[in-house]
């Protein structure tokens, strides 16, 4: 997971990204509704279109700032951040990776869980500057070339997300678990995701999905019996 080919991305968004008109934004959002709802991809295995780029928040020039290098989902960024920004602010507002959610912003709920150098952390409780030199994986980095990870596929099959707001965090905690323990038991899955709240309380589905993803891997390593 660690070794990736990093491609440098400048700390500047393209002009067209900056100058999206309101109208264009709403139109593209509207189009996204159509794309999203049309998605028969589960049935037909199609790759959905990427979401429209969101206009990024830029640092306030009147406050202390630092330029950091951070690798996010395999892409290296050289990016200026406000010293007061948390990692989740960098991810969501600056880099437009809104899959990571803020549930409490104080380390209680786990909705903002990301991997930092492959370890799960609450990104609301990390300053962005602390990510200098680190490698971050967010929910957007789990699918490869439009193919869901086995864990994501298990989440879909087991109806793990209800409202979906805690799902990214549950996925990241469970991804870290599977990396260190490829075939967890239900108890081990509960322990690993204990720091991730779900108000829909779909906990049993989450655990079933993680155990199933582990078992699927088991079968695969045993010779692809399926």
């Amino acid at each position: 997971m660690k070794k990736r080919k990093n491609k440098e991305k400048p700390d500047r968004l393209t002009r067209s990204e900056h100058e999206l008109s309101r109208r264009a934004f709403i139109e593209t959002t509207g189009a996204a509704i159509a794309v999203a709802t049309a998605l028969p991809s589960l049935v037909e295995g199609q790759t959905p279109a990427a979401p429209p780029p969101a206009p990024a928040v830029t640092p306030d020039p009147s406050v202390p700032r630092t330029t950091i290098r951070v690798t996010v989902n395999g892409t290296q960024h050289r990016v200026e951040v406000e010293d007061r920004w948390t990692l989740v602010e960098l991810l969501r507002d600056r880099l437009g990776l809104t899959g990571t959610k803020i549930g409490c912003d104080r380390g209680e709920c786990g909705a903002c869980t990301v991997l930092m150098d492959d370890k799960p952390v609450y990104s609301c409780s990390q300053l962005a500057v602390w990510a200098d030199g680190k490698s971050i994986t967010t929910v957007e980095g789990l699918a490869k070339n439009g193919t869901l990870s086995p864990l994501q596929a298990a989440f879909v099959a087991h109806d793990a997300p209800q409202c979906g707001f805690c799902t990214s965090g549950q996925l990241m905690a469970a991804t870290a678990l599977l990396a260190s323990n490829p075939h967890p038991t239900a108890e081990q899955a509960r322990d690993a995701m204990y720091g991730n709240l779900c108000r829909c309380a779909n906990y049993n589905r989450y655990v079933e999905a993680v155990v199933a993803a582990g078992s699927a891997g088991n079968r695969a390593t045993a010779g692809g019996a399926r």
Partner: protein
Amino acid sequence: MKQRSNSGAPAPAAGGNANVGVSPLKVVGHPTPRIDAEERVTGRAKYTNDVQLPGMLYAKVLRSPHPHANIKSIDVSKAKAMPGVKAVLTNENCKVVWGAGSVAGGQQYSDEVKKNTKQRRYAFNNPVRFVGEPVVAIAAVNRHLAEEALQQVVVDYEILPHVIDQEDALKPDAPKIWPEGNLCLNNRNEAAPLAQKRGNVEQALASSSHVFEDRFSTSFVHNAQMEPRSCVALWEGDKLTVYTPTGGIANCRHDIARDLGMADEKVRVICQYMGGNFGNKNQNQDADLITAMLAKEAGAPVKLELSRRDDFLGVHGRWPTIHYYKVAASDDGKLQAIQLRGYSSMGGYRKNSGSMAGIELYDVANVDSSVSPVYTNKTVSGNFRGPEYPQGFFGIQSMMDDVAYKMKMDPVEFGMKNMIRTARENVPFSNYTLDECIKRGAEIFDWKSRWRPVPGSDKGPIKKGAGFTYMAFRSGVGSSSAVVQVDAKGKYTLFVGVTDVGAGAKTTMGLIAAEALGVPLSQVEVVWGDTDKCPYSVGESGSRTTIMTGYAAIQAAEDLKKQIAEKGMPTGSNILVASATPQPRGGAARNAFGAHFVEAEVDVELGRVRITKYVAVHDCGRIMNPLTAASQIHGAAIQGIGMALHEQLLYDNRNGQPLTAGYYYDRIPTHRDAVPVEVTFIENDDGQGPWGAKSMGESGIILSPGAIGNAIFNATGKRMKDLPITRDKILGALA
């Protein structure tokens, strides 16, 4: 009639449902992953706070630190002078009335009530009536600056005496929260309890050989949905677009338009994904109004973000209740009379009814129920999943469990002897399966061997016991709308004004339309969550989207099929469109039924409770999607465990300060609290709604607190009368 067990995760691909009794359908009734599941597991699903507009400002709200105070003055001059601060609102420059925020037993949708009420709630109020009430809102170029600007605001408060407990609030010398007193006014400006009377309770209590009385209480539990409230507002000329987490885009739009004095069509409400609902969001919120007014003032789009604490205090939760029951029974254990005196704490405004359900479960000739909704200086109470049910059912079913033991009867036998078998006035239910739910549940649970005839009789410090509760829940049909079209390529598009709050409405609507059209689900696209694109839908509240909007989708599909039969499929760029707004009748005596059986293990030395078996049997009519249906019951039952054992927005009555406003102290259930829930559906088709579908979403939480309390009694011999049943209460009762 058929039964379907769904305790583990069904393998969606496995299919093969044993459809016995209800006629099998092609698309509906098979475990189907959500059509938007992939959005939810990849981070592509866009929630309100994910919306980012060019030039957008960030807003924060300063909230009252006092439970009750007059605002003498607000000095915003320093904040306004800060570079980057673009708009400041207070009660002085914003007089918008929040119609849905107050008054009168769920009548908040009525323009008439909003106009006539004496107890009006504004977006910013003076006096403030609870800790967390909005006082100042500021929009600035970034969220940190907005926060810093709030710190520069100086508010001069005249602190008023406060009252936190609802019984204290009705005492003659209690501080008055409204000039008319602390008993809430109804929509006719009358201070009157919610009353229900039949027969002669006094006489029955006097003449019965067995009379019992007791007191129960439940606590304020917050909806605590994972998505903290946020809102994005954008003005383009006189057209307002609001992105907001709402369960009902149509009602939310109408509320915003009414409160801002605009025409409905000048407001567009968009909510695609919502991070949990759990009640009272089928309308607008003060946050929507504040954001819209800030955006107007600043001349730029604004995003308002509530912190978790803001959300706990500034939004709403389940109304806490106090119940006094008197119950009379004859020698053979037949109920003769039920009397209830109830008190519900509504907070500083009456956002909802404050009623208590449960008495309607019993076949009893004499009833006298009086429930008082009471103003207190607490966070405002509202609807939370089965608004008046889990509280009411915990009270009455704990009471009746106790009566059963005192009458030396098995609580299941007592329940079956006294429960309703027809709706009121002997009107038959559209179908009735309560007996079957209970019998089936007792069998799966193995009640006879798990239930202890002598409560608390297990030896040693770890004691087990069993409890049960049953329910009947409104499931009426009603009106909603749907539009469906087909193009020349045979692609069908369904337009429905639903929001996907987590229950899977979008997928359910797709399944229903596909079934009615006779095409696979993959051929149906669902357009949802945008008032500019979708017709009216009742909104995700009252467990009625499937019944009402689903039925409209069928009617629209039938119309489209007729058109296709008459005109043939469209060619070229033509489309065929059909719409429907059916007005189905006859839903009054339509109910969903269910029973929960719980085994609890209590460590009497530590006061710890563990749920060791949980069986839930539900009749929700025909099941549209067994996969998501089972998830609903699982999740709701576990949410109910939180209400039973942990959750409480606790106040210090002396200073009126909330003590547990956040996840850490409020203790909603975690992965460690989740227990396996064995879900069984008893399916049937009463010929109403979409192929017999009935209410579902709220059902699971209604029975859980009562069943857990009853199981703890059976294990320990101690009746736990106050929710949440925390360790200290158990140890106190056993001491």
